[in-house]
């Protein structure tokens, strides 16, 4: 079974729980953390590759703990024709995937740092950020 890429979103109430540990120990799943941003008392995200026979049960466990699970089948992209490089997204993007190149002040999107939180879709004044499946 091929590893699946998924995104886990944690509320701040559960950011202190050893959830990934239980995935491995109780369900025998093999995980590879691609990206993680989990801090005490903050909302967090983990992007990981996950595989194992009890994959479905592992996901059920995650959801029972209040973790939201999304497949990483989608990608965001910046429509360069629409984007005006205003910059309004750059201090809202939680991972710095959208940032201003200095001194040109052009907006840059580094999709490697994107955790698909999609807040840019809402805050972009000209709707230049797009979801691609």
């Amino acid at each position: 079974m091929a590893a699946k890429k998924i995104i886990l979103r944690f509320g701040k109430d559960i950011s202190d729980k050893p959830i990934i540990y239980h995935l491995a120990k109780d369900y025998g799943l093999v995980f590879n953390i691609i990206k993680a941003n989990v801090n005490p008392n903050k909302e967090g995200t983990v992007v990981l590759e996950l595989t194992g026979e009890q994959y479905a049960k592992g996901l059920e466990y995650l959801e029972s703990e209040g973790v939201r699970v999304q497949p990483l089948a989608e990608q965001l992209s910046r429509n360069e024709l629409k984007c005006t490089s205003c910059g309004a997204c750059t201090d809202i993007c939680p991972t710095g995937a959208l940032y201003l190149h200095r001194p040109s002040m052009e907006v840059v999107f580094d999709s490697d740092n994107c955790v698909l939180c999609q807040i840019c879709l809402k805050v972009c004044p000209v709707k230049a950020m797009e979801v691609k499946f």
Partner: protein
Amino acid sequence: MAIEKTYAEINEKIRSGKAVVLTAEEVIALVEEKGVSEAARQVDVVTTGTFSPMCSSGVFLNFGHSKPRIRMQKVWLNGIPAYSGIAAVDAYLGATELPEDDPCNSNYPGEFRYGGGHVIHDLLSGKSIKLEALSYGTDCYPRRELETYITLNDINEATLFNPRNAYQNYNCAVNLSGKTIYTYMGLLKPNLGNAHYSSAGQLSPLLNDPYFLTIGIGTRIFLGGGIGYVAWHGTQHFPGIQTDQEKNSYGPAGGTLAVIGDLKQMKPEWLVGTSYLGYGATLTVGIGIPIPILNEDVMSCVSITDRDLYAPVVDYSDAYSQRISGNLGYVSYAELKTGKITVNGKEIPTAPLSSYPKAREIAGKLKDWIQKGDFFLSEPVKLLPSYQDQITAKTLDINDV
């Protein structure tokens, strides 16, 4: 000897291809190297630019007459109401107008995905726009309803008329409260989580003519990718010099422009429908103004840099909304552009709402037009009021009825 140039002399140089034109960004280095006098001698025109959301914008439209005729009493364009309390088939479509069935902020924060500004952009993009009109019927205008599709080419006039654009300077918005707020200055995170500013700074038109030495009624400008004119001073035109409590000066602020131009020769990339989460819809407008270097005073004004220009830091959770005067201090545009400022002892990230790259592009285009002899300067019929006129803002008192 003092340097004096007239509009006619500068236009003659443009005509003969000899005019020296720099952008407001380029002129900085020249003045730093050669000084104001020598720069004033060498340069004829300095071009400015700004590309920002400007809510007080809209377009007068004349649709032409249907058969039989209608005196349009209510008008919608793609479902967005336009004001038709003027002659039979005239209407004014405002940039911030929303569909009557928009959920607005009842589903907080509202998205405001389509408004008057988006219709203007779609018209310019050549798209077909649904026109609906209702009326009561008269002997001379018997038709009571109408539904059709129009394009910009189909209608008689489309005159962009923006009552307040090109704010000379603007606040740097922060949020002191404990919850996220959604404002016309974007999403402001709680507890000084971020700071938003909105000015082209050293490229901004009215920051390069802070005392209104050259800009006035009839000044020909870059407007929405085409040619426009300064029609009047803008609404809420209160030019002044910012000071703190110790009377330290923080430069000019408060001037605005009313601008006008034929929409049909403008370009969709320079008039863009815009949405602010939880706030509303608007139009992002591209404006560029040429500053004729008439003398050294004018050159001295256009040589300002982001280090010399300041925005007041204002709390939008309370002080702005409750109209409490004062601010949290001043920050320079040079500081704002680094991406971090310090407010109340806390370092916070900054982001602009006004596109500096587009402002630079506009100043560059205008420079190009002038150098090619496609754009001449116009001498204003009358200069606009300046800080010396001491115009102050009136407030609206809520009287008991």
